[in-house]
């Protein structure tokens, strides 16, 4: 399994976390896992929607100490 890349998008607002994830996604290989950290709840909801829409996979999504973690896998 490849290392999971952390995309630290804390303290930025919508759609900052999504844009940072996508920029990292472009550089990732198919099968790679990325974990976005966000303090913006809207983004925590919106990122899984985007992942579903474009056909990647959400592995997990949870809040830990006020920070949302959304873990995704690049599928294509």
């Amino acid at each position, binding site marked *: 399994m490849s290392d999971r890349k952390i995309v630290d998008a804390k303290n930025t*607002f919508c*759609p900052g976390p999504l*844009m940072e994830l*996508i920029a990292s996604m472009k550089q990732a290989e198919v099968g790679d896992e990325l974990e976005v950290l966000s303090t913006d709840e809207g983004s925590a909801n919106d990122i899984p929607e*985007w992942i579903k829409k474009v056909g990647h996979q959400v592995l997990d999504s949870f809040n830990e100490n006020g920070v949302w973690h959304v873990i995704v896998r690049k599928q294509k």
Partner: protein
Amino acid sequence: MSNKVSIVVISGDREQLQMAAMLASVAAVSGSEVTVFLSMNAVRYFQQDDNSLAPAEGEVGVLLQNKNAPDFRELFQSAAELGDANIYPCSMALDILKLSTDELVEYIGEPLGLTKFLEMSSDSQVWSF
């Protein structure tokens, strides 16, 4: 629903520019073909080396600046670089402002007239700000 999104931006107010940029960037990275037409008071914010703040219309605009929201210019740039967005300045607005395309940021395309924009957007969703 059409997968083409056209966005007309004429306002020079922060909230309007921000919302247009958010819509453009999210649509572009979600697989839509996005066309942005910048005219009237919006154009001046896309000059090179100009990071001047657009004035806030209201409370949220003031808060946006203090809350580390991405700058609207960064979002338009992401739309063009990460997704399928083309951003065009209005040729009339450039004439009035005496600006050439060379003076605009590099992710902005060639000036567009209304006839061409109407043709390009005829089968798309159209949003205006």
